[in-house]
């Protein structure tokens, strides 16, 4: 297949967004067209993944300028699989959104913006150039702002203020780092930078850029102590939006950390140390806070933080086994977290509340749905052999083999926190007898919904639940992918050679 194929996912998203902008305000069309275009994107993404899986790393030069002069697009196994996951989530969420996003929001461009968010994510995964990574990040940020605020409810706006401030700050820090990198290496192509950075006369400058990158990406990934924007904003927008955010945005930060630090700062003991410490604090902060939450979606938000800690910890450990764990966890987390927030939406639809105190009785009222919802919940805990369990083996045993006892211990502790948090949640939300539910003006409860609306809830949840079951039971299929990614990342030259089309 032609290497230009890398562009196709991007083109599809952008074209879809443009078309939907032309069809401004036409609700029905936008709903269906969004689902359609995301289905198309999924097909293309799978093709791209297949291409990479068979041919190895694929790269393409925009404008045909040979690297490092043009902007390089690089589809290695990591990028390709993440693009694939993005479009999976994209399809699920666009279906969910079609059922849950109210007409006013659709009228004001919800779906085109969502599409552009996916565009930004795919671009950021695929780009091989530092500055355009920044640009893609800005696309993600601005479209997430819009999705966060669209509708302008009080909660939304207040959450948006925190979200906006800390993310803006982080991207300015990030931009500063890029500028310094250009100042000391005179290039922006990541592979090229990777070659030139070791030659810089002032190594401490290089480390400063590393710190700035860590702060910049760390904020997006919500690691300690940069995560505060997340718990104060993720529970404010519509569920579909929270689902995308919870599933993909923070993982974007994790991806950036993996990419940049495996490429530019490999073998830097100090940096790995800092990362590991940050990871430990993140696990503790997220896990501990998760145990004392009363709002379902905020509980999930803290669990996101806790589990980001797992992945960062793996990056800190850095052995192939650890990275395999991280990648596997990344795959699992993207699917499951997205599903969690959709489940939260479903429970809200059933009971009209997100407060754990008032929730209840779902187990008795909707046993089959409870079973369905149990899948993501217990996958998240990592009840073996569900998806959350496998990567922990990689992470913990990697910690043991490298004698990183503390971080392994913290990962175990974090898993314990998660177990308790979810078990409590199950007892409260599903087992506890339900409170009296009052009818509300302009709020239709689940049992009043039509079949079509119900399907728009259940299809995506079922789809992702099935996927996470597959990741868990078919771990033997996922592990080789994660391992291949880890091996590709373990040696900088693999990436560099792929970009410059040189053979070792």
């Amino acid at each position: 297949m032609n290497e230009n194929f890398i562009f196709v996912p991007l083109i599809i998203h952008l074209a879809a967004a443009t078309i939907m902008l032309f069809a401004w305000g036409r609700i029905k069309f936008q709903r269906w067209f969004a689902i359609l275009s995301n289905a198309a994107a999924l097909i293309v993404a799978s093709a791209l993944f297949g291409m990479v899986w068979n041919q190895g790393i694929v790269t393409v030069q925009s404008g045909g300028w040979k690297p490092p002069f043009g902007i390089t697009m690089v589809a290695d196994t990591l990028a390709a699989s993440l693009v694939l996951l993005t479009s999976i989530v994209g399809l699920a969420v666009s279906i969910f959104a079609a059922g849950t996003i109210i007409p006013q929001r659709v009228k004001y461009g919800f779906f085109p913006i969502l599409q552009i968010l996916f565009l930004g994510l795919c671009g950021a995964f695929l780009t091989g150039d530092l500055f355009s990574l920044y640009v893609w990040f800005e696309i993600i940020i601005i479209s997430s702002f819009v999705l966060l605020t669209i509708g302008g409810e009080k909660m939304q706006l207040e959450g948006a203020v925190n979200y906006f401030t800390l993310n803006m700050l982080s991207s300015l820090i990030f931009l500063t780092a890029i500028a310094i990198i250009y100042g000391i290496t005179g290039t922006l192509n990541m592979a090229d930078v990777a070659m030139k950075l070791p030659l810089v006369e002032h190594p401490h400058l290089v480390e400063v850029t590393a710190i700035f990158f860590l702060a910049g990406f760390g904020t997006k990934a919500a690691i300690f102590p940069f995560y505060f924007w997340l718990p104060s904003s993720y529970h404010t927008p519509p569920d579909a939006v929270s689902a995308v955010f919870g599933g993909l945005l923070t993982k974007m930060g994790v991806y950036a950390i993996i990419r940049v630090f495996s490429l530019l700062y490999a073998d830097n003991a100090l940096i790995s140390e800092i990362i590991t410490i940050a990871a430990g604090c993140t696990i503790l902060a997220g896990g501990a806070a998760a145990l004392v939450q009363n709002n379902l979606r905020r509980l999930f938000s803290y669990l996101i933080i806790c589990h980001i800690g797992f992945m960062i910890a793996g990056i800190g450990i850095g052995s192939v086994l650890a990275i395999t764990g991280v990648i596997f966890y990344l795959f699992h987390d993207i699917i499951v977290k997205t599903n969690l927030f959709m489940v939260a939406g479903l429970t809200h639809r059933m009971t009209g509340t997100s407060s754990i105190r008032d929730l209840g009785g779902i187990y008795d009222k909707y046993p089959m749905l409870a079973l369905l919802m149990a899948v993501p919940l217990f996958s998240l805990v990592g009840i073996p052999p569900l998806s959350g369990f496998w990567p922990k083996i990689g992470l913990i045993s990697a910690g043991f083999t490298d004698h990183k006892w503390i971080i392994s211990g913290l990962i175990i502790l974090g898993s314990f926190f998660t177990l308790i948090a979810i078990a409590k949640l199950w007892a409260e939300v599903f087992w506890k007898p339900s409170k009296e539910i009052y009818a509300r003006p302009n709020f239709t409860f689940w049992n009043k919904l039509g079949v079509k609306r119900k399907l728009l809830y259940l299809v995506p949840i079922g789809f992702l639940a099935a996927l996470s079951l597959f990741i868990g039971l078919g771990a033997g299929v996922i592990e080789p992918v994660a391992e291949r990614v880890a091996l590709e990342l373990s040696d900088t030259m693999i990436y560099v050679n792929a970009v410059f089309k040189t053979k070792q």
Partner: protein
Amino acid sequence: MNLLLPIVTGVLYAAGIYMLLRRSFVKLIIGFTLLGNGVNLLIFLMGRLAKGKPPLIPDYADVIPGLYADPVPQALILTAIVISFGLQSFAIILIKRVYAIANTDDLDEINTTDDYA
């Protein structure tokens, strides 16, 4: 100027961050504008200074003769300026809406999302 402009950059950063730490949302946005200017200046400096030599190829030549200002940072700054314009205009409107809803721009008055639900 190789000394003064770095200092100016530092001043812009400092001022920006100081404004970020205020309680007024408006000041916060102003802070971002200042920071943005600081970053642009920093990027510009990263290309080193070359007085009065724009990266334009004269009519008579096919390449720029002699020393010239580094075009790359200029391109980056152009992009950065425009992007931050987009974000800022969004933020400015956010001020308006937040003010309309909370009737204040005191950030401590609009933090209910961190309360326990």
